[in-house]
């Protein structure tokens, strides 16, 4: 029996899961520095020895991009850190990022055999460790940074480059676009990323806060992609300044769309346009991309209030709530209509939010935002109870009659989800969309209904995860290569 066997094995390695050094909560709510400090070499090696090196490693099944987890952990235990990173990079081009933000508890670590009786191997933390170690050494030239750049001196590569010296356009510089670009550059294509914002990274730069993903780390990963020969053009809103047809007619052999799910949803309740009501996108963009948390050093303002509500239960809600705390709010109420088990946020985020004093108001739903003289004053809510499971498999929340109550606040952040932004898709002729406005694309290849055009990431799947977007970018790169080489659609 599995459990018996694993029992025996775990007995052999009775090492507890190595905890992550963290800034303590009282301290960290006063700054925007990273919360989790990262393993030391000693921590990493110790944790790696917990791995049982299973014959049929189940963790790999749990990883959306099939990283050879078993091997990279083995390499760590042998202190072959560079090789461990190369092993990860075979499948994942953004390891320092995924090691930080992947929901490992639902992926690799969920499947880890140790998880049956004990805590799983800390795969994400190990991934982060080897990636950070390399980044801090500032050596961005891994053994794969060849590409088609001028300084490429390998003869055979050069030939290959000439034969495939074709131009590919990538729209959007989130994880999907960055990965697709990097993979195609490695294959010798001339790749240009077109990004609407003034910084590269998509959600990684405008959404996920500094305290969870330092922008320095992202910059280094971006530099790595650039070192492969990828050109990044910022301030380019495709659909406005250029259309996909312009690109296809002007020398680009193929186009990849990775524009994400960047349309904020509101609840459509009264009072939502009062001053002090933000979409999570706006709140986080002001803070992260525009650095409003450093106002007035940076010019962009953001509301700094004493009492604030965040509506939602996902990562976006947690990030908003924790940002509000750091911007000096005394009371941050996280209002969620279901209970904690249904929360889609990562466990680590929920834990961190609680430690930081975010007040969870569960089974509660706003029905109105009440203001005076144009500003938010209160949020009117009803209590909810859970009924039968809905299409998502989670129990459907239903309002309880007569349970209306008010919570005094000065600002609200709506973190109830995002949808597809029609700016690009509405200008692309012949691009089929789903009923909800996402791009219809083949799940394996990213092929869309428009010849030469591929898509992947949140603009296809709806708001999902970094690793899935990355995976989609990667498989699209394979399909683009095949299409451009054969011309077969």
């Amino acid at each position, binding site marked *: 029996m599995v459990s018996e066997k694993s029992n025996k094995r775990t007995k052999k390695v009775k090492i507890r899961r190595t905890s992550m050094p963290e800034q303590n909560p009282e301290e960290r709510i006063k700054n925007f520095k990273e919360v989790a400090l990262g393993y030391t070499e000693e921590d990493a090696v110790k944790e790696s020895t917990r791995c049982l090196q299973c014959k049929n490693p189940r963790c790999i099944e749990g990883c959306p991009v099939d990283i050879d987890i078993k091997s990279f952990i083995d390499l760590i235990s042998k202190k072959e850190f560079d090789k461990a990173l190369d092993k990860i990079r075979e499948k994942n081009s953004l390891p320092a990022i995924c090691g930080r933000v992947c929901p490992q508890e639902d992926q690799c670590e969920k499947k880890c055999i140790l998880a049956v009786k004990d805590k799983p191997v800390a795969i994400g933390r190990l991934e982060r460790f080897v990636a950070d170690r390399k980044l801090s050494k500032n050596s961005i030239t891994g053994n794969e940074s060849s590409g088609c750049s001028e300084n490429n001196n390998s003869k055979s590569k050069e030939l290959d480059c000439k034969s495939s010296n074709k131009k590919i356009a990538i729209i959007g510089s989130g994880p999907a676009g960055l990965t697709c670009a990097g993979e195609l550059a490695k294959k010798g294509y001339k790749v240009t990323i077109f990004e*609407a*914002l*003034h910084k590269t990274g998509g959600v990684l730069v405008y959404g996920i806060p500094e305290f969870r993903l330092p922008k320095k780390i992202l910059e280094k990963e971006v530099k790595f992609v650039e070192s492969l020969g990828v050109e990044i053009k*910022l*301030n*380019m*809103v495709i659909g*406005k*300044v*250029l259309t996909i047809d312009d690109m296809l007619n002007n020398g680009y052999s193929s186009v990849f769309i990775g524009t994400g799910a*960047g*349309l*904020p949803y*509101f609840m*459509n309740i009264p009072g*939502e*346009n009062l*001053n*002090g009501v*933000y*979409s999570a*996108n*706006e709140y986080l*963009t*002001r803070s992260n991309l*525009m*650095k409003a948390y450093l*106002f*007035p*050093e*940076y*010019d*962009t*303002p953001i*509301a700094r209030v004493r009492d604030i509500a965040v509506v939602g239960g996902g990562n976006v809600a947690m990030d908003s709530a924790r940002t509000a705390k750091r911007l000096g709010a005394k009371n941050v109420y996280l209002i969620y209509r279901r209970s904690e088990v249904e929360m889609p946020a990562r466990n680590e985020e929920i834990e961190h939010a609680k430690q930081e004093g975010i007040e969870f108001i569960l089974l509660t739903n706003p029905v109105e935002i009440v203001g005076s*003289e*144009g500003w938010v004053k209160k949020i009117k809510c009803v209590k909810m109870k859970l009924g039968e499971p809905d299409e998502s498999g989670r129990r459907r929340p239903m309002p309880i009659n007569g349970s209306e109550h008010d919570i005094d606040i000065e600002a609200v952040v709506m973190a109830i989800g995002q949808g597809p*932004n*029609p*700016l690009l898709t509405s200008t692309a002729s012949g691009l089929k969309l789903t009923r909800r406005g996402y791009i219809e694309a083949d799940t394996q290849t990213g092929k869309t209904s428009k010849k030469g055009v591929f898509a992947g990431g949140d603009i296809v799947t709806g708001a999902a995860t970094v690793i899935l977007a990355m995976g989609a970018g990667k498989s699209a790169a394979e399909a683009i290569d095949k299409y451009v080489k054969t011309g077969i659609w």
Partner: protein
Amino acid sequence: MYKIVGKIKLAEGIDRFEIEAPLIAKKAKAGQFVVIRVNEYGERIPLTIADYDSSQGIISLVTMSIGKTTYMLSKLKRGDSIRDVVGPLGKQSEIERFGKVICVGGGVGIAPVMPIAKSLKNTRNYIISIIGAKNKASLILADEMKEISDEFYICSDDGSIGFHGFVSEKLNELLEDSEKSSDSDLRKDINRVIAIGPAPMMSAVCSVTKPYSIKTIVSLNSIMVDGTGMCGACRVEVGGETKFVCVNGPEFDGHKVNFNLLMLRQKMYLNEEKKALDLYEEKCGCKMLEQKNGKTC
């Protein structure tokens, strides 16, 4: 980086910049805008594309200095660069043969009215322009507007030039006159009013035209961040529905716009804006208002 290849002072506190942005110049249409960021620390602010020349690859922006970002802009010279310019954003103006169109521009709003009036003129509309400013010294683009107009009126709040009063008052006069006129065609012909300027002005214009049921288009200047429909900062209420100015607009049917909400939302960051400006003035050791009165920094 986007290079400033020309700069002209149009009036006290109002400058016109010519900026090298070939891709934007190629696609720009009347009614659209760009979002700019002056430097790495800067805010993203929207500015209307006042003119564009696709053969030269140049767009023109007209800015009025009212806060930190626009003051910083006003200090830039020919040869300097603006860190980020993104566009063209927003929907283009509806340009058709409407017949008679009244184009109303107030203050710096004259700049965005101009390309629309031009396009309408080129589409063989009869253009009646009413432009206004606080006083003679702050009036901009009068000659340019006169040139493209079939009828042309200037207003000033203090009477230092043209009609003494607001543009909305002049408009009211015109409409009343046409109503009284025995020539019934005169009034019937006015099929559209386009009004751009400060929110209170646009609101006043809409109140004037409403009783006459003349379709009135306004260009809303809500606070923005990305300008691509991603954040919702720019939301306004039009016909009882929430709209994003940056992608659904900036032009809307003025009779449906909730101007009170727009004006409240424009005040969201008054304290922060004041603080930013105070600190900036302290740093450069001068008062921007004094500078306006002729003293230099």
